[in-house]
Protein backbone atom coordinates (compact mmCIF):
# COMPACT_ATOMS: atom_id res chain seq x y z
CA UNK A 1 0.00 0.00 0.00
CA UNK A 2 2.77 2.39 1.05
CA UNK A 3 4.79 1.48 -2.05
CA UNK A 4 1.81 2.23 -4.28
CA UNK A 5 1.36 5.61 -2.59
CA UNK A 6 5.05 6.51 -2.95
CA UNK A 7 4.88 5.64 -6.65
CA UNK A 8 1.85 7.89 -7.14
CA UNK A 9 3.59 10.72 -5.24
CA UNK A 10 6.49 10.34 -7.64
CA UNK A 11 4.20 10.43 -10.71
CA UNK A 12 2.48 13.62 -9.48
CA UNK A 13 5.80 15.36 -8.80
CA UNK A 14 7.29 14.17 -12.11
CA UNK A 15 4.25 15.39 -14.07
CA UNK A 16 4.52 18.85 -12.44
CA UNK A 17 8.23 19.05 -13.21
CA UNK A 18 7.64 18.07 -16.84
CA UNK A 19 4.54 20.21 -17.40
CA UNK A 20 5.65 23.34 -15.53
CA UNK A 21 8.93 23.56 -13.61
CA UNK A 22 11.44 22.34 -16.15
CA UNK A 23 10.21 24.62 -18.93
CA UNK A 24 12.92 26.98 -20.28
CA UNK A 25 11.17 30.23 -19.19
CA UNK A 26 10.86 29.04 -15.60
CA UNK A 27 14.39 27.68 -15.47
CA UNK A 28 15.77 30.99 -16.78
CA UNK A 29 13.57 32.95 -14.31
CA UNK A 30 14.84 30.72 -11.52
CA UNK A 31 18.47 31.21 -12.55
CA UNK A 32 18.11 34.97 -12.96
CA UNK A 33 16.96 35.29 -9.39
CA UNK A 34 20.18 34.27 -7.58
CA UNK A 35 22.42 35.87 -10.20
CA UNK A 36 20.69 39.25 -9.87
CA UNK A 37 20.63 39.04 -6.06
CA UNK A 38 24.31 38.14 -5.79
CA UNK A 39 25.56 40.61 -8.40
CA UNK A 40 23.55 43.47 -6.91
CA UNK A 41 25.14 42.95 -3.50
CA UNK A 42 28.58 42.22 -4.93
CA UNK A 43 28.75 45.52 -6.87
CA UNK A 44 27.54 47.43 -3.84
CA UNK A 45 30.08 45.95 -1.42
CA UNK A 46 32.51 43.31 -2.85
CA UNK A 47 34.24 42.79 0.52
CA UNK A 48 31.04 42.12 2.44
CA UNK A 49 29.46 39.74 -0.06
CA UNK A 50 30.32 36.62 1.97
CA UNK A 51 28.22 37.91 4.85
CA UNK A 52 25.04 38.09 2.81
CA UNK A 53 25.53 34.99 0.65
CA UNK A 54 23.77 32.53 3.04
CA UNK A 55 20.82 34.91 3.21
CA UNK A 56 20.72 35.31 -0.57
CA UNK A 57 20.77 31.55 -1.08
CA UNK A 58 17.92 31.24 1.44
CA UNK A 59 15.98 34.00 -0.36
CA UNK A 60 16.51 32.28 -3.71
CA UNK A 61 14.97 29.06 -2.39
CA UNK A 62 12.15 30.99 -0.68
CA UNK A 63 11.14 32.90 -3.81
CA UNK A 64 11.53 29.90 -6.16
CA UNK A 65 9.65 27.33 -4.10
CA UNK A 66 6.81 29.53 -2.81
CA UNK A 67 6.16 31.18 -6.18
CA UNK A 68 6.04 27.96 -8.13
CA UNK A 69 3.90 26.02 -5.66
CA UNK A 70 1.41 28.88 -5.37
CA UNK A 71 1.27 29.54 -9.12
CA UNK A 72 0.99 25.92 -10.25
CA UNK A 73 -1.73 24.95 -7.78
CA UNK A 74 -3.73 28.15 -8.35
CA UNK A 75 -3.42 27.60 -12.12
CA UNK A 76 -4.63 24.02 -11.83
CA UNK A 77 -7.49 25.13 -9.59
CA UNK A 78 -8.45 27.74 -12.18
CA UNK A 79 -8.43 25.26 -15.09
CA UNK A 80 -10.05 22.58 -12.89
CA UNK A 81 -7.14 20.24 -13.70
CA UNK A 82 -6.54 19.86 -9.94
CA UNK A 83 -9.92 18.12 -9.75
CA UNK A 84 -8.46 15.27 -11.80
CA UNK A 85 -6.27 14.41 -8.84
CA UNK A 86 -9.15 14.74 -6.38
CA UNK A 87 -11.31 12.41 -8.52
CA UNK A 88 -8.54 9.80 -8.80
CA UNK A 89 -8.06 7.12 -6.13
CA UNK A 90 -5.52 9.18 -4.22
CA UNK A 91 -5.52 10.29 -0.60
CA UNK A 92 -5.17 14.01 0.12
CA UNK A 93 -1.80 13.20 1.70
CA UNK A 94 -0.55 11.66 -1.58
CA UNK A 95 -1.65 14.72 -3.56
CA UNK A 96 -0.16 17.16 -1.04
CA UNK A 97 3.19 15.39 -0.84
CA UNK A 98 3.38 14.97 -4.63
CA UNK A 99 2.65 18.66 -5.24
CA UNK A 100 5.09 19.72 -2.50
CA UNK A 101 7.92 17.58 -3.86
CA UNK A 102 7.57 19.07 -7.35
CA UNK A 103 8.01 22.67 -6.22
CA UNK A 104 10.52 21.72 -3.51
CA UNK A 105 12.68 20.11 -6.20
CA UNK A 106 12.55 23.36 -8.19
CA UNK A 107 13.54 25.37 -5.09
CA UNK A 108 16.33 22.90 -4.34
CA UNK A 109 17.60 23.12 -7.90
CA UNK A 110 17.74 26.93 -7.72
CA UNK A 111 19.41 26.76 -4.29
CA UNK A 112 21.96 24.32 -5.67
CA UNK A 113 22.68 26.52 -8.71
CA UNK A 114 23.22 29.56 -6.47
CA UNK A 115 25.57 27.49 -4.29
CA UNK A 116 27.59 26.47 -7.34
CA UNK A 117 27.79 30.12 -8.43
CA UNK A 118 29.02 31.40 -5.07
CA UNK A 119 31.59 28.65 -4.61
CA UNK A 120 32.91 29.11 -8.15
CA UNK A 121 33.05 32.91 -8.26
CA UNK A 122 33.74 33.84 -4.65
CA UNK A 123 35.77 30.81 -3.62
CA UNK A 124 33.46 30.15 -0.69
CA UNK A 125 34.41 26.98 1.22
CA UNK A 126 31.66 24.70 2.42
CA UNK A 127 32.47 24.02 6.07
CA UNK A 128 29.78 21.40 6.65
CA UNK A 129 28.42 19.64 3.54
CA UNK A 130 25.91 17.48 5.44
CA UNK A 131 24.20 20.34 7.24
CA UNK A 132 24.33 22.38 4.00
CA UNK A 133 22.54 19.60 2.09
CA UNK A 134 19.96 19.19 4.86
CA UNK A 135 19.44 22.96 5.07
CA UNK A 136 18.85 23.19 1.31
CA UNK A 137 16.40 20.25 1.31
CA UNK A 138 14.44 21.24 4.42
CA UNK A 139 14.25 24.89 3.32
CA UNK A 140 12.93 23.85 -0.12
CA UNK A 141 10.24 21.61 1.35
CA UNK A 142 9.22 24.08 4.02
CA UNK A 143 8.98 27.01 1.55
CA UNK A 144 7.08 24.86 -0.99
CA UNK A 145 4.55 24.13 1.75
CA UNK A 146 4.15 27.88 2.36
CA UNK A 147 3.37 28.23 -1.36
CA UNK A 148 0.78 25.47 -1.14
CA UNK A 149 -0.77 27.05 1.95
CA UNK A 150 -1.07 30.33 0.03
CA UNK A 151 -2.73 28.62 -2.94
CA UNK A 152 -5.48 27.17 -0.73
CA UNK A 153 -7.07 30.52 -0.04
CA UNK A 154 -6.89 32.19 -3.46
CA UNK A 155 -8.57 31.77 -6.84
CA UNK A 156 -6.41 33.86 -9.19
CA UNK A 157 -2.67 33.77 -9.86
CA UNK A 158 -2.28 37.50 -9.13
CA UNK A 159 -3.93 36.93 -5.76
CA UNK A 160 -1.47 34.10 -5.10
CA UNK A 161 1.46 36.40 -5.89
CA UNK A 162 0.11 39.19 -3.69
CA UNK A 163 -0.46 36.76 -0.85
CA UNK A 164 2.99 35.21 -1.33
CA UNK A 165 4.62 38.64 -1.03
CA UNK A 166 2.58 39.30 2.11
CA UNK A 167 4.42 36.34 3.67
CA UNK A 168 7.79 36.78 1.99
CA UNK A 169 8.66 40.46 2.31
CA UNK A 170 8.58 40.53 6.12
CA UNK A 171 10.85 37.48 6.04
CA UNK A 172 13.38 39.34 3.86
CA UNK A 173 13.92 41.87 6.67
CA UNK A 174 13.26 39.85 9.82
CA UNK A 175 15.15 36.60 9.23
CA UNK A 176 18.81 37.59 9.28
CA UNK A 177 19.26 37.88 5.51
CA UNK A 178 20.88 41.36 5.57
CA UNK A 179 21.49 41.96 9.27
CA UNK A 180 21.65 39.60 12.26
CA UNK A 181 18.42 38.73 14.01
CA UNK A 182 19.92 39.34 17.47
CA UNK A 183 20.75 42.94 16.48
CA UNK A 184 17.05 43.76 16.00
CA UNK A 185 14.65 45.10 18.67
CA UNK A 186 13.31 42.31 20.90
CA UNK A 187 9.78 42.41 19.49
CA UNK A 188 11.11 41.97 15.94
CA UNK A 189 13.41 39.18 17.16
CA UNK A 190 10.34 37.35 18.49
CA UNK A 191 8.65 37.69 15.10
CA UNK A 192 11.87 36.63 13.36
CA UNK A 193 12.13 33.46 15.44
CA UNK A 194 8.59 32.52 14.36
CA UNK A 195 9.61 32.48 10.68
CA UNK A 196 11.25 29.46 8.96
CA UNK A 197 13.67 31.56 6.87
CA UNK A 198 15.50 32.55 10.09
CA UNK A 199 16.51 28.92 10.71
CA UNK A 200 17.20 28.30 7.04
CA UNK A 201 19.61 31.28 6.82
CA UNK A 202 21.24 30.43 10.17
CA UNK A 203 21.89 26.81 9.14
CA UNK A 204 23.21 27.92 5.73
CA UNK A 205 25.48 30.54 7.39
CA UNK A 206 27.03 27.93 9.67
CA UNK A 207 27.49 25.50 6.78
CA UNK A 208 29.24 28.10 4.61
CA UNK A 209 31.05 30.46 6.97
CA UNK A 210 33.35 29.77 9.92
CA UNK A 211 31.56 32.13 12.34
CA UNK A 212 28.93 30.88 14.76
CA UNK A 213 25.23 31.39 14.28
CA UNK A 214 22.22 32.04 16.47
CA UNK A 215 22.08 28.43 17.67
CA UNK A 216 23.60 25.08 16.81
CA UNK A 217 23.09 24.34 13.15
CA UNK A 218 21.40 21.00 13.82
CA UNK A 219 18.95 22.71 16.16
CA UNK A 220 18.18 25.06 13.24
CA UNK A 221 17.55 22.03 11.07
CA UNK A 222 15.38 20.38 13.69
CA UNK A 223 13.20 23.50 13.97
CA UNK A 224 13.05 23.75 10.17
CA UNK A 225 11.93 20.11 10.05
CA UNK A 226 9.29 21.04 12.63
CA UNK A 227 7.98 23.79 10.33
CA UNK A 228 7.83 21.22 7.51
Amino acid at each position, binding site marked *: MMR*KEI*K*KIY*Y*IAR*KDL*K*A*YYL*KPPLISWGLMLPVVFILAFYFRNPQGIEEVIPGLVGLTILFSATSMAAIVIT*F*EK*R*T*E*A*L*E*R*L*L*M*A*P*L*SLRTILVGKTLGSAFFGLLMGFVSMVLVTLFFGLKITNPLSLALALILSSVSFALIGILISVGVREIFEAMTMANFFRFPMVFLCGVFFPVNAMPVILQVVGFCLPLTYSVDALRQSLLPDGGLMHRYLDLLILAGFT
Partner: protein
Amino acid sequence: MEEVICLEGLSKKYGDLVAVDAVSFSVHEGEIFGYLGPNGAGKTTTIRMLVGLTRPTSGEATLNGVSILKDPVRAKETVGVVPEASNLYGELTAWENLVYMAQLYGLPKKEWGARAGELLRDFGLIERKDDKFQVFSRGMKRRLTIAAALVHRPRLLFLDEPTTGLDVMSARGLRQVIRKLKEKGVTVFLTTHLIQEAEELCDRIAIIVKGKIRTIDTPAKLKNQVQEVEILEMKVHPLFDSLPKEMESIPGVEKATLVEGKIHLIGKSVHQALPPIVAHLSGKKMQILSIQTLTPSLEDAFVKLTGVDGEIMRVDKPQKMGGGG
Protein backbone atom coordinates in the same frame (compact mmCIF):
# COMPACT_ATOMS: atom_id res chain seq x y z
CA MET B 1 -29.77 -6.84 -10.47
CA GLU B 2 -26.71 -5.48 -8.69
CA GLU B 3 -26.86 -1.91 -7.44
CA VAL B 4 -23.76 -0.07 -8.63
CA ILE B 5 -24.69 3.30 -7.12
CA CYS B 6 -26.77 3.62 -4.00
CA LEU B 7 -27.70 6.96 -2.41
CA GLU B 8 -29.48 7.22 0.92
CA GLY B 9 -30.66 10.63 2.05
CA LEU B 10 -27.72 12.41 0.45
CA SER B 11 -27.81 16.16 1.10
CA LYS B 12 -25.59 19.15 0.50
CA LYS B 13 -26.13 22.54 2.06
CA TYR B 14 -24.22 25.76 1.40
CA GLY B 15 -25.23 27.92 4.35
CA ASP B 16 -29.01 28.26 4.10
CA LEU B 17 -29.10 27.04 0.50
CA VAL B 18 -30.04 23.36 0.14
CA ALA B 19 -28.39 22.33 -3.14
CA VAL B 20 -29.30 18.64 -2.81
CA ASP B 21 -32.08 17.64 -0.44
CA ALA B 22 -32.06 14.10 1.01
CA VAL B 23 -31.77 12.35 -2.35
CA SER B 24 -32.20 8.54 -2.36
CA PHE B 25 -32.08 6.21 -5.36
CA SER B 26 -30.01 3.40 -6.81
CA VAL B 27 -28.53 2.69 -10.23
CA HIS B 28 -28.42 -0.88 -11.57
CA GLU B 29 -25.47 -2.55 -13.21
CA GLY B 30 -25.21 -2.04 -16.97
CA GLU B 31 -27.84 0.67 -17.33
CA ILE B 32 -27.55 4.21 -18.60
CA PHE B 33 -29.11 6.28 -15.85
CA GLY B 34 -30.07 9.81 -16.75
CA TYR B 35 -30.05 12.57 -14.17
CA LEU B 36 -32.17 15.30 -15.66
CA GLY B 37 -32.95 18.73 -14.39
CA PRO B 38 -32.76 22.42 -15.23
CA ASN B 39 -29.58 24.40 -14.59
CA GLY B 40 -28.96 24.79 -10.87
CA ALA B 41 -31.20 21.83 -9.96
CA GLY B 42 -28.41 20.03 -8.07
CA LYS B 43 -27.18 17.62 -10.77
CA THR B 44 -23.51 18.59 -10.66
CA THR B 45 -23.53 18.88 -6.86
CA THR B 46 -24.80 15.28 -6.66
CA ILE B 47 -22.09 14.06 -9.02
CA ARG B 48 -19.41 16.05 -7.14
CA MET B 49 -20.44 14.37 -3.90
CA LEU B 50 -20.39 10.93 -5.49
CA VAL B 51 -16.92 11.35 -7.01
CA GLY B 52 -15.35 12.82 -3.89
CA LEU B 53 -15.05 16.49 -4.88
CA THR B 54 -17.55 17.73 -2.29
CA ARG B 55 -18.33 16.21 1.09
CA PRO B 56 -22.06 15.60 1.69
CA THR B 57 -23.66 17.50 4.57
CA SER B 58 -25.58 14.36 5.48
CA GLY B 59 -26.57 10.98 4.09
CA GLU B 60 -24.56 8.13 2.63
CA ALA B 61 -23.70 6.76 -0.78
CA THR B 62 -21.89 3.68 -2.06
CA LEU B 63 -20.18 3.06 -5.39
CA ASN B 64 -19.81 -0.61 -6.30
CA GLY B 65 -20.65 -1.40 -2.68
CA VAL B 66 -17.93 0.84 -1.17
CA SER B 67 -18.87 3.84 0.97
CA ILE B 68 -17.76 7.18 -0.45
CA LEU B 69 -17.44 8.53 3.09
CA LYS B 70 -15.70 5.65 4.85
CA ASP B 71 -13.33 4.54 2.08
CA PRO B 72 -13.27 7.24 -0.62
CA VAL B 73 -9.99 6.11 -2.19
CA ARG B 74 -11.20 2.53 -2.77
CA ALA B 75 -14.62 3.77 -3.89
CA LYS B 76 -12.94 5.79 -6.63
CA GLU B 77 -10.79 2.91 -7.92
CA THR B 78 -13.52 1.38 -10.11
CA VAL B 79 -15.08 4.66 -11.20
CA GLY B 80 -14.36 6.84 -14.22
CA VAL B 81 -15.37 10.50 -14.23
CA VAL B 82 -15.90 12.84 -17.16
CA PRO B 83 -16.45 16.26 -15.63
CA GLU B 84 -18.33 19.07 -17.29
CA ALA B 85 -15.08 20.82 -18.21
CA SER B 86 -12.50 19.03 -20.36
CA ASN B 87 -9.81 19.42 -17.75
CA LEU B 88 -6.82 17.38 -18.80
CA TYR B 89 -3.34 18.88 -18.71
CA GLY B 90 -2.80 21.36 -21.54
CA GLU B 91 0.98 21.11 -21.36
CA LEU B 92 0.98 17.33 -21.84
CA THR B 93 0.35 15.50 -25.13
CA ALA B 94 -2.68 13.25 -25.63
CA TRP B 95 -0.43 10.22 -25.07
CA GLU B 96 1.18 11.67 -21.92
CA ASN B 97 -2.21 12.57 -20.46
CA LEU B 98 -3.48 9.00 -20.84
CA VAL B 99 -0.26 7.48 -19.47
CA TYR B 100 -0.43 9.86 -16.48
CA MET B 101 -4.01 8.75 -15.78
CA ALA B 102 -2.89 5.10 -16.05
CA GLN B 103 -0.20 5.85 -13.44
CA LEU B 104 -2.62 7.57 -11.06
CA TYR B 105 -5.13 4.72 -11.33
CA GLY B 106 -2.42 2.15 -10.61
CA LEU B 107 -2.26 0.27 -13.91
CA PRO B 108 0.82 -1.97 -14.25
CA LYS B 109 3.65 -0.24 -16.14
CA LYS B 110 3.57 -2.72 -19.05
CA GLU B 111 -0.07 -1.76 -19.75
CA TRP B 112 0.39 2.03 -19.90
CA GLY B 113 1.41 2.28 -23.55
CA ALA B 114 -0.93 -0.44 -24.82
CA ARG B 115 -3.96 1.02 -23.05
CA ALA B 116 -3.18 4.59 -24.16
CA GLY B 117 -2.76 3.42 -27.77
CA GLU B 118 -5.98 1.37 -27.67
CA LEU B 119 -8.03 4.31 -26.38
CA LEU B 120 -6.48 6.80 -28.80
CA ARG B 121 -7.39 4.45 -31.67
CA ASP B 122 -10.94 3.90 -30.32
CA PHE B 123 -11.53 7.65 -30.06
CA GLY B 124 -9.93 8.49 -33.42
CA LEU B 125 -7.05 10.45 -31.93
CA ILE B 126 -4.08 8.15 -32.59
CA GLU B 127 -2.68 10.43 -35.31
CA ARG B 128 -2.69 13.36 -32.87
CA LYS B 129 -1.12 11.42 -29.99
CA ASP B 130 1.94 13.67 -29.81
CA ASP B 131 -0.01 16.93 -29.93
CA LYS B 132 -0.53 18.86 -26.73
CA PHE B 133 -4.02 18.80 -25.25
CA GLN B 134 -4.17 22.61 -25.32
CA VAL B 135 -4.14 22.74 -29.15
CA PHE B 136 -7.05 20.31 -29.57
CA SER B 137 -10.49 21.40 -30.76
CA ARG B 138 -13.34 21.33 -28.24
CA GLY B 139 -14.68 18.04 -29.62
CA MET B 140 -11.24 16.39 -29.52
CA LYS B 141 -10.70 17.62 -25.97
CA ARG B 142 -14.02 16.09 -24.98
CA ARG B 143 -13.15 12.77 -26.61
CA LEU B 144 -9.75 12.64 -24.91
CA THR B 145 -11.34 13.51 -21.55
CA ILE B 146 -13.71 10.56 -21.95
CA ALA B 147 -10.80 8.33 -23.02
CA ALA B 148 -8.88 9.41 -19.90
CA ALA B 149 -11.82 8.38 -17.72
CA LEU B 150 -11.76 4.89 -19.27
CA VAL B 151 -8.03 4.19 -18.89
CA HIS B 152 -8.52 1.87 -15.90
CA ARG B 153 -11.53 0.08 -17.43
CA PRO B 154 -14.05 1.35 -14.87
CA ARG B 155 -17.29 -0.53 -14.22
CA LEU B 156 -19.05 2.76 -13.62
CA LEU B 157 -18.71 5.98 -15.60
CA PHE B 158 -19.97 9.40 -14.54
CA LEU B 159 -20.64 11.76 -17.42
CA ASP B 160 -21.46 15.34 -16.50
CA GLU B 161 -23.10 17.18 -19.41
CA PRO B 162 -20.96 15.30 -21.96
CA THR B 163 -22.22 17.01 -25.13
CA THR B 164 -22.57 20.58 -23.87
CA GLY B 165 -20.97 23.02 -26.27
CA LEU B 166 -20.24 20.43 -28.97
CA ASP B 167 -21.28 20.68 -32.60
CA VAL B 168 -23.97 18.31 -33.90
CA MET B 169 -21.57 15.74 -35.37
CA SER B 170 -19.32 15.61 -32.30
CA ALA B 171 -22.36 15.27 -30.02
CA ARG B 172 -23.73 12.45 -32.17
CA GLY B 173 -20.32 10.70 -32.11
CA LEU B 174 -20.23 10.95 -28.32
CA ARG B 175 -23.69 9.47 -27.99
CA GLN B 176 -22.50 6.50 -30.06
CA VAL B 177 -19.53 6.11 -27.72
CA ILE B 178 -21.90 6.06 -24.72
CA ARG B 179 -24.05 3.35 -26.36
CA LYS B 180 -20.94 1.25 -27.05
CA LEU B 181 -19.91 1.56 -23.41
CA LYS B 182 -23.28 0.20 -22.36
CA GLU B 183 -22.81 -2.73 -24.78
CA LYS B 184 -19.54 -3.48 -22.99
CA GLY B 185 -21.38 -3.64 -19.67
CA VAL B 186 -20.29 -0.26 -18.29
CA THR B 187 -22.86 1.43 -16.08
CA VAL B 188 -23.27 5.08 -17.08
CA PHE B 189 -24.53 7.86 -14.83
CA LEU B 190 -25.35 10.71 -17.17
CA THR B 191 -26.27 14.19 -16.05
CA THR B 192 -27.75 16.38 -18.71
CA HIS B 193 -30.09 19.28 -19.17
CA LEU B 194 -30.90 18.12 -22.72
CA ILE B 195 -34.21 16.23 -22.65
CA GLN B 196 -33.83 14.73 -26.11
CA GLU B 197 -30.38 13.36 -25.25
CA ALA B 198 -31.72 11.74 -22.09
CA GLU B 199 -34.66 10.23 -24.00
CA GLU B 200 -32.36 8.87 -26.70
CA LEU B 201 -29.78 7.30 -24.39
CA CYS B 202 -31.18 6.43 -21.00
CA ASP B 203 -32.75 3.27 -19.66
CA ARG B 204 -34.10 5.15 -16.65
CA ILE B 205 -34.30 8.81 -15.82
CA ALA B 206 -34.38 10.65 -12.52
CA ILE B 207 -35.75 14.18 -12.66
CA ILE B 208 -34.33 16.55 -10.07
CA VAL B 209 -35.69 20.03 -9.43
CA LYS B 210 -34.46 22.39 -6.70
CA GLY B 211 -32.41 19.61 -5.12
CA LYS B 212 -35.26 17.12 -4.83
CA ILE B 213 -36.01 14.05 -6.92
CA ARG B 214 -39.43 14.46 -8.53
CA THR B 215 -39.63 11.07 -10.23
CA ILE B 216 -37.55 8.11 -11.46
CA ASP B 217 -38.75 5.88 -14.30
CA THR B 218 -38.09 4.73 -17.86
CA PRO B 219 -38.60 7.39 -20.57
CA ALA B 220 -41.64 5.48 -21.90
CA LYS B 221 -43.31 5.30 -18.49
CA LEU B 222 -42.56 8.95 -17.80
CA LYS B 223 -44.36 9.83 -21.02
CA ASN B 224 -47.27 7.52 -20.17
CA GLN B 225 -47.69 9.33 -16.87
CA VAL B 226 -48.82 12.43 -18.76
CA GLN B 227 -50.77 10.70 -21.53
CA GLU B 228 -54.26 11.48 -20.27
CA VAL B 229 -55.82 12.03 -23.72
CA GLU B 230 -55.14 10.88 -27.28
CA ILE B 231 -54.60 13.33 -30.08
CA LEU B 232 -55.37 12.31 -33.65
CA GLU B 233 -53.81 14.63 -36.24
CA MET B 234 -55.38 14.58 -39.73
CA LYS B 235 -54.60 16.44 -42.91
CA VAL B 236 -57.69 16.69 -45.12
CA HIS B 237 -58.60 18.44 -48.37
CA PRO B 238 -60.49 20.67 -48.61
CA LEU B 239 -60.34 21.92 -45.03
CA PHE B 240 -63.33 24.00 -43.88
CA ASP B 241 -63.40 26.23 -40.80
CA SER B 242 -66.65 24.55 -39.76
CA LEU B 243 -65.03 21.09 -39.64
CA PRO B 244 -63.99 21.14 -35.94
CA LYS B 245 -67.57 21.80 -34.87
CA GLU B 246 -68.80 18.93 -37.07
CA MET B 247 -66.14 16.58 -35.66
CA GLU B 248 -67.07 17.42 -32.06
CA SER B 249 -70.56 16.08 -32.77
CA ILE B 250 -69.08 12.58 -33.37
CA PRO B 251 -69.15 10.42 -30.18
CA GLY B 252 -65.60 9.93 -28.82
CA VAL B 253 -64.27 13.28 -30.10
CA GLU B 254 -64.23 15.60 -27.13
CA LYS B 255 -62.50 18.50 -28.81
CA ALA B 256 -61.35 19.41 -32.32
CA THR B 257 -59.06 22.25 -33.33
CA LEU B 258 -57.31 23.47 -36.47
CA VAL B 259 -53.51 23.60 -36.14
CA GLU B 260 -51.30 24.72 -39.04
CA GLY B 261 -53.56 23.39 -41.82
CA LYS B 262 -54.38 20.17 -39.95
CA ILE B 263 -57.17 19.17 -37.64
CA HIS B 264 -56.43 17.81 -34.15
CA LEU B 265 -59.12 15.50 -32.72
CA ILE B 266 -58.79 15.05 -28.97
CA GLY B 267 -60.42 12.44 -26.74
CA LYS B 268 -59.70 9.81 -24.10
CA SER B 269 -59.79 7.02 -26.76
CA VAL B 270 -60.28 8.99 -29.94
CA HIS B 271 -58.90 6.19 -32.15
CA GLN B 272 -62.08 4.20 -31.48
CA ALA B 273 -64.04 6.98 -33.20
CA LEU B 274 -62.00 6.67 -36.37
CA PRO B 275 -64.63 4.75 -38.51
CA PRO B 276 -67.42 7.36 -38.04
CA ILE B 277 -64.86 10.16 -38.56
CA VAL B 278 -63.76 8.64 -41.90
CA ALA B 279 -67.37 8.04 -42.91
CA HIS B 280 -68.25 11.67 -42.11
CA LEU B 281 -65.36 13.00 -44.19
CA SER B 282 -66.19 10.68 -47.11
CA GLY B 283 -69.80 11.84 -47.01
CA LYS B 284 -68.54 15.42 -47.33
CA LYS B 285 -66.34 14.40 -50.31
CA MET B 286 -63.23 15.35 -48.33
CA GLN B 287 -59.94 13.57 -49.02
CA ILE B 288 -57.75 12.28 -46.14
CA LEU B 289 -54.10 13.10 -47.00
CA SER B 290 -52.47 11.91 -43.77
CA ILE B 291 -53.42 10.63 -40.35
CA GLN B 292 -51.31 10.02 -37.22
CA THR B 293 -51.56 9.70 -33.47
CA LEU B 294 -49.61 12.28 -31.48
CA THR B 295 -47.95 10.96 -28.32
CA PRO B 296 -46.55 13.20 -25.58
CA SER B 297 -42.78 13.74 -25.71
CA LEU B 298 -40.44 13.40 -22.76
CA GLU B 299 -40.36 17.18 -22.78
CA ASP B 300 -44.14 17.22 -22.23
CA ALA B 301 -43.64 14.78 -19.36
CA PHE B 302 -40.83 16.92 -17.94
CA VAL B 303 -42.91 20.09 -18.10
CA LYS B 304 -45.87 18.35 -16.51
CA LEU B 305 -43.84 16.71 -13.75
CA THR B 306 -41.60 19.63 -12.87
CA GLY B 307 -43.50 22.72 -13.83
CA VAL B 308 -40.30 23.94 -15.52
CA ASP B 309 -40.63 25.36 -19.02
CA GLY B 310 -39.16 22.87 -21.49
CA GLU B 311 -37.79 25.79 -23.49
CA ILE B 312 -35.34 26.44 -20.65
CA MET B 313 -33.98 22.92 -21.04
CA ARG B 314 -33.27 23.35 -24.75
CA VAL B 315 -30.94 26.27 -24.11
CA ASP B 316 -27.34 25.13 -24.09
CA LYS B 317 -25.42 25.84 -20.89
CA PRO B 318 -22.55 28.31 -21.05
CA GLN B 319 -19.48 26.29 -21.96
CA LYS B 320 -16.91 25.78 -19.22
CA MET B 321 -13.41 26.12 -20.53
CA GLY B 322 -11.01 23.73 -18.92
CA GLY B 323 -7.82 22.01 -19.83
CA GLY B 324 -5.44 24.92 -19.89
CA GLY B 325 -3.36 23.20 -17.30
